[in-house]
């Protein structure tokens, strides 16, 4: 089940609740960023954008460099925050 529905059905912890949710959202976002499949998908999209002329070479290269950096980091054994 999705993250939001999991949070909503969990027992409420009124005082810490907001902070806890924020942490969960952040952790999930980090996992998503360092997931090799997401990175691969993003690389495919950069290539498509390049081919269709949606972005220029410089922007495409910049995005690819960033994605490669994340990919190498991810391949070292999960995300650095995991």
């Amino acid at each position: 089940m999705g993250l939001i529905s999991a949070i909503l059905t969990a027992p409420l912890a009124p005082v810490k609740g907001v902070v806890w949710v924020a942490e969960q959202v952040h952790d999930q976002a980090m996992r998503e960023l360092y997931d090799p499949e997401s990175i691969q998908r993003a690389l495919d999209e950069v290539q498509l954008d390049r081919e269709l002329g949606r972005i220029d070479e410089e922007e495409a290269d910049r995005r690819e460099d960033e994605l490669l950096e994340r990919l190498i980091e991810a391949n070292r054994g999960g995300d650095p925050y995991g």
Partner: protein
Amino acid sequence: MPLHVYGVTRADVVLPDGLQGLYDAPVTTVADDGLAALVSECPEAPTARRAELMAHARVLEQVVEAQTVLPMQFGMCMPDEPTVRHDLLVAHRPRLGTLLSELDGTVQLTVKVVYREDDALREVLHRSPPLLRMRERLASIPADAAHFKQAEFGQEVAAELERMGSRDGTEILGALAPLCLAHAEGKLLSPYHILNTAFLVRREARTRFDEAVGAIAEQWNEVGTVRYLGPQPPYSFVDLEAGDPAWA
């Protein structure tokens, strides 16, 4: 100086003139008793920028045009020639020899088929008049009331898309499989990806395979795009563990 290793071939390999690899360094060989490793000098640990990754692939693709080469994973960096000789060629001689024999006369060709989002969704509606009517009904419901129904509708669309993709992917694979020695399925990264398969094909069967891929591209042209790569070294058909080949 450390050596970046690209792959392993038979020692009688003929390299293209002026072949360059990472950092524009010349590609040379380190040979041992009938086997050769393709190497070039490189810094301690190569960076994984576009230039380095593409250089690694390009070296392999240039060599595979004419002869069999077992590709190394990117980033294999060995300190010197004796290490390459002993820790790669000698240590793994039986397996390397077996792979070179089994893969002799073959290349890898990769076929990826991806639906175009709008065209595929139109096809889903075309195949499913009930979904089309659901869409019409949803359009007439006020947005705030429709939220939950929209999610259910989306779920139905996703399911039908999955069914359609599965059928199409299977049909495409069925058309190409008889023309290869082996195939290896890769990851499908979204519901719109319907095929991502590496095919091991005999060199002399390449034209026939090209034609089959052409027919597929034409037949699926209205809903999707075919990406056809090769000739590649047999990335998906090598490993250093002894085991049965994917083809007998």
